[in-house]
């Protein structure tokens, strides 16, 4: 049975990337603890609109933890603290207590400028993907799918790497603003599959170069990224990326 809780919410307001931004706060009363965190924010916005104010802006879409749109930094953790590693939309109010102060901030990173409030621009991720995150293959008649045999273990591992949802929590958590976990997950997926091998060297170099160019920081192996990754991507991917990258550079 759901119980109701009351708490204070501090949320970040910022009008564009050049604005300094500030917190606003509001007392939330009698929120059923089986509402999701985003539904709680819906209630907040409904209240703000009823007061004639502009709502608090944040990104969200599928609300089932897969689209990667949501990007809130809640009480010092990207996506908030969930049991199994999940996105903001899968965080439920039962994880909070009566009287809590809940602080909601945007991803703070130079490569992710704020658009408004907690909505940030993550198009840098698309640019990195465009630099090499694909297997170049024409639409048409490739060989039969079963003509490429892939050991189950490799397929499973590639799948684990491929589950990255591109939310950017890794960058948000990293004190260096590094995108290595994101990049390494994509590079790893293709590095593990035979289809990805022909372009492996080119891909690793191109994606790393683009990442550096876009102003992401360097990896110092603090492991903050994997601790907050909603899809439990491992820094073993980063080691693999380093391997692929060094191999590619040495072969030059």
């Amino acid at each position, binding site marked *: 049975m759901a119980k109701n809780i009351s708490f204070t919410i*501090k949320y970040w307001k910022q009008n564009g990337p050049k604005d300094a931004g500030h*917190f606003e706060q509001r007392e939330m009363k009698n929120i059923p603890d089986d509402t999701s965190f985003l539904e709680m924010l819906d209630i907040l916005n409904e209240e703000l609109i009823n007061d004639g104010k502009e709502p608090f802006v944040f990104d969200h879409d599928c609300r089932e933890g897969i689209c990667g749109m949501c990007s809130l930094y809640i009480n010092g953790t990207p996506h908030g603290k969930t049991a199994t590693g999940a996105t903001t939309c899968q965080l439920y109010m039962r994880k909070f207590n009566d009287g809590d102060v809940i602080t909601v901030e945007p991803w*703070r990173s*130079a490569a992710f400028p704020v658009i408004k409030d907690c909505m940030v621009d993550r198009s840098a991720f698309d640019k990195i993907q465009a630099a090499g995150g694909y297997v170049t293959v024409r639409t048409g008649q490739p060989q039969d799918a079963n003509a490429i045999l892939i050991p189950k273990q490799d397929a499973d591992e590639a799948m684990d790497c491929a589950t990255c949802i591109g939310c950017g929590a890794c960058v948000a958590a990293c004190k260096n*603003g590094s995108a290595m976990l994101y990049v390494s997950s994509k590079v790893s997926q293709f590095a593990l599959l035979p289809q990805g091998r022909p372009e492996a060297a080119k891909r690793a170099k191109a994606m790393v170069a683009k990442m550096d160019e876009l102003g992401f920081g360097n990896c*110092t*192996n603090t492991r*903050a990224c994997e601790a907050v990754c909603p899809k439990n991507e491992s820094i073993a991917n980063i080691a693999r990326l380093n391997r692929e990258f060094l191999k590619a550079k040495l072969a030059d």
Partner: protein
Amino acid sequence: MSVSGVALILFLTFHACMNVVALFSAEGYNMICEMLGANWYAVAATAALAALVAVHFIYAIILTLQNRKARGASRYAVTDKPATVEWAAQNMFVLGVIVILGMVLHLYNFWYNMMFAEIANGSMAYVNDLSAHDGYGMIVYTFACPVYSVLYLVWLAALWFHLTHGFWSAFQTLGWSGKIWFNRVKTIGYVYATVLILMFAVVVVKFALCGGACCTGICG
């Protein structure tokens, strides 16, 4: 960072082994000191070492500046460090600065009085009535001062933290890690760093407590 770091770890290993000799034999230790005097190979190695440290440090400054820029202008109001994130991992630069400061002190205490003095004044250089080749004497002299002993221990502690992260981090950066190897490398790193620092620390502690006296007691 990783390559210079690994090289520096190797140097530390050599240095620690050398120090331990001082526990057992003053003559043995001084023999090594003599070998590492102002000979061409020792000077060359020292220059290479200095270059390594410089590379490691300058690169660290560049990376830290880049990373601070990447972090952006705004800071989080609330942060909650995940349990798996080690303190050392997030403070490598600060630890590195402490290590460098300790190193400057150390160079002043020993290298300046030994190799540098020898280069400047020839093989007959004397400082505080000690020959430039009497490394053992200098150990006794330095750690007779409790302030130095404590400073050295603080320095070693910082170095331990720096190494616990630096060791596996170097392997990770060089791509020699994975889901299974990560834990192996990390464990090896902890053991290695601990043994290494203990080897250094035991020399400091021993000479701080009883100077050269008990050494002769042990070694006869």
